[in-house]
């Protein structure tokens, strides 16, 4: 009820959430999925100073103290990380939304945070589904469409929500000029590295960040016809960190990806009909040794239901642990954020989700969401 009211008014949301934090210091449940080893039966997670302080058996903690959330029939998981999202980016009635700049195809100087609306109700909506971190990114209409950012699904001001910016550069592989555009751009950036100067265009500075592997190049691609090959060639030539979104035909050319150890973010569709049979793409790619995450591509999918979509991946092969890894620690590892998020490990951000029952069950719902040690949602 509270969540429903909070989600309807951005101003009310910001006001009420500022007052809604509770001093929760211990969360206990029937099972704790740490994503740093096997799940703990009858376990607890202790919080201090916004971080995970300790994780262990219930018997190791004093559950009689104030500030305890106890779900004897529930489960605890790390905060869900949605690493492919365009949430809050609305506005264009033509349907492309604010994520897709149509005036030019090459736009590494654009910053998604200039379009991201921290007051939009979809932030609270995602959070109510257990998503605590999202990678918000430009769309896929240009060869290079701009820079993405990692944000926590807390509340404004924006500066307090941003975890990392830039978190990557978004591009596509399906345009015929893809190779030439990347080659020219990164060639210029490489040449600029040889002549350091403070007067350098943002596009070149972003290119330099890619060359230094500080940020990844995230490509919307992997469709039939081998259109990913020009980007693979660019990644080889310039030694880039490369990540691929969707990768819908990657069950056909996975050897190239395995050889380069390229991480894949699957979604919004989990299941594909390829060559007359239903394929669980995530399961297939994981079985080949690739690092795979599942994401919503909000608003094509919905961030709020990412956990439910991950449950679909249990069909045809993924275990519960693998499905949960795909929306937590794998996502964090892919974007080099696993030093802070993705698992319930001492020292990491206290981004914790308490479920009313076993994860991936149809009747289980999100009971409580904690971000940075503070409760941001309670059912």
């Amino acid at each position, binding site marked *: 009820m509270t969540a429903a009211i909070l989600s309807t008014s951005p101003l009310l949301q910001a006001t009420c959430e500022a007052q809604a934090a509770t001093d929760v210091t211990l969360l206990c449940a029937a099972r704790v999925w740490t994503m740093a080893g096997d799940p703990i039966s009858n376990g607890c997670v202790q919080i201090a100073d916004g971080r995970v302080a300790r994780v262990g058996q219930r018997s190791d903690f004093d559950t009689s103290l104030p500030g305890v959330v106890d779900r004897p029939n529930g489960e605890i998981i790390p905060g869900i990380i949605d690493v492919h999202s365009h949430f809050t980016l609305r506005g264009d009635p033509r349907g492309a939304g604010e994520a897709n700049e*149509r*005036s030019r195809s090459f736009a590494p100087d*654009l*910053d998604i945070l200039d379009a991201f609306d921290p007051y939009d109700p979809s932030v609270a909506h995602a959070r109510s589904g257990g998503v605590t971190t999202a990678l918000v990114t430009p769309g896929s209409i240009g060869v290079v469409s701009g820079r993405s950012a990692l944000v926590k699904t807390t509340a404004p001001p924006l500066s307090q929500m941003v975890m990392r910016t830039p978190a990557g550069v978004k591009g596509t592989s399906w345009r015929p000029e893809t190779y030439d555009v990347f080659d020219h751009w990164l060639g210029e950036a490489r040449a600029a590295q040889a002549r350091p100067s403070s007067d350098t265009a943002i596009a070149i500075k972003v290119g330099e960040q890619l060359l230094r592997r500080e940020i990844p190049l995230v490509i919307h691609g992997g469709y039939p016809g081998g259109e990913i090959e020009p980007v693979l060639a660019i990644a080889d030539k310039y030694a880039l960190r490369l990540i691929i979104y969707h990768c819908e035909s990657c069950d056909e050319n996975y050897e190239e990806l395995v050889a380069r150890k390229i991480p894949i973010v699957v979604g919004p569709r989990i299941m594909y009909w390829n060559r007359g049979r239903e394929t669980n793409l995530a399961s297939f790619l994981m079985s080949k040794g690739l690092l795979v995450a599942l994401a919503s591509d909000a608003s094509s999918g919905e961030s709020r239901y990412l956990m439910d979509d991950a449950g679909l991946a249990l069909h045809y092969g993924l275990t519960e642990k693998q499905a949960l890894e795909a929306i937590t620690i794998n996502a964090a590892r892919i974007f080099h954020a696993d030093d802070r998020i993705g698992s319930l490990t001492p020292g990491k951000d206290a981004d914790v989700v308490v479920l009313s029952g076993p994860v991936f069950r149809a009747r289980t719902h999100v009971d409580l969401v904690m971000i940075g040690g503070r409760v941001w949602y309670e059912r």
Partner: protein
Amino acid sequence: MRYRCVLQRVLVRNCLLVAALVLCGSTIAAQQVTAASHPPARVIVSAGGLWNGIDAPTGPVTLIIEDGRIAAVRRGRASASEPGHHFDFGDWTIAPAGFAISAAATPHDGTGLAADSRLIERADASAHQFLEGARAGATSFLLDAYPQATLGGTSSVYRPLDYWSENREVVPDVGVTVALRGRTIPPTRTAMEASWEVRKAMLLARDRKPAGEMGKLMAGSLAFQVSAPTLAEFARAVAVAREFGVHLLATGVHQVPVAPLPYDSVRVLLGAPSLDELPELWDTYAALQRQRISTGILIGDAPLPTLLALSRPYAAAHGLTEAAMLAAFTSAPADVLGAKALGQLTSHHSADFLVISGKLFDARARIERVFIEGREVFDRQRPRR
């Protein structure tokens, strides 16, 4: 022959008649232009009550207006023998006129960027706009670019062509108009691109210090005038203003963030409210007042007396007196815009006022007459069109 002579006489007489009419018409028009561009020398206005835009009301009262400005405010009614042009409005009330916004067409150069243009050159010159403003209680207009313009040109506070020989700027050089939002008409543009284009222009201006409007913006003699009707746009505007250290004038604001703004050099014009937005309007106004941010409210379609009457419970909940409520629409926006001579009916200020039948905070009250610089420009009983 005879017919032709008769015809010639008719034609000649008619030509003379037409010429006489043209001459008279020109004389009348010239007198109108002359009279409009030169306010009456001395005007004396008596009324049942006065709200001066600052203090609690007084009345009965007489305003002495000389050369378009308030020379004196006296208690009681004026004597008929006193020299000057007299108006006696019985028990009606006088209040200062307010401000509205006027969108000026911006050049269609394909990019929506026109920082060095002056919006006054494209200002709405129609009597319609002026009359609609007067009916609602606004006589001065802040120019703003059309919502789709990313960098729309330099604004000013002006009065429309009607009644004067040209659009008259009463406060020139207010700000460089900006919209940090996507553009949905061709050429389309996302908010990312709009923000980037504005930043790029400001980065160039900061580095090269050009002589034009962007240079003046960076030097502080023009405001960064951002249309910010949503929370996200307002927050974005504050962030950009802070990044470049420019003075922010946010217009059309409806909501502001709850947390204190991270930047001091901010002025805000709220509105123009519709009647169902009044509770939120006063919440936002009070929130900005608490942060000591210079804030005024613009007038839109709803007439000022109706706005005030219906606002009373919401404004009173924030501790605002009736005088403070009126000031929010009159002297406060004048402060925000640097319009030193407008917004209040005290000595040396421009005699721009509304004559209202009944009490100001009565929903039944009507704006009966409007005066600018002591000259009557609107009479509800005798609409000009």
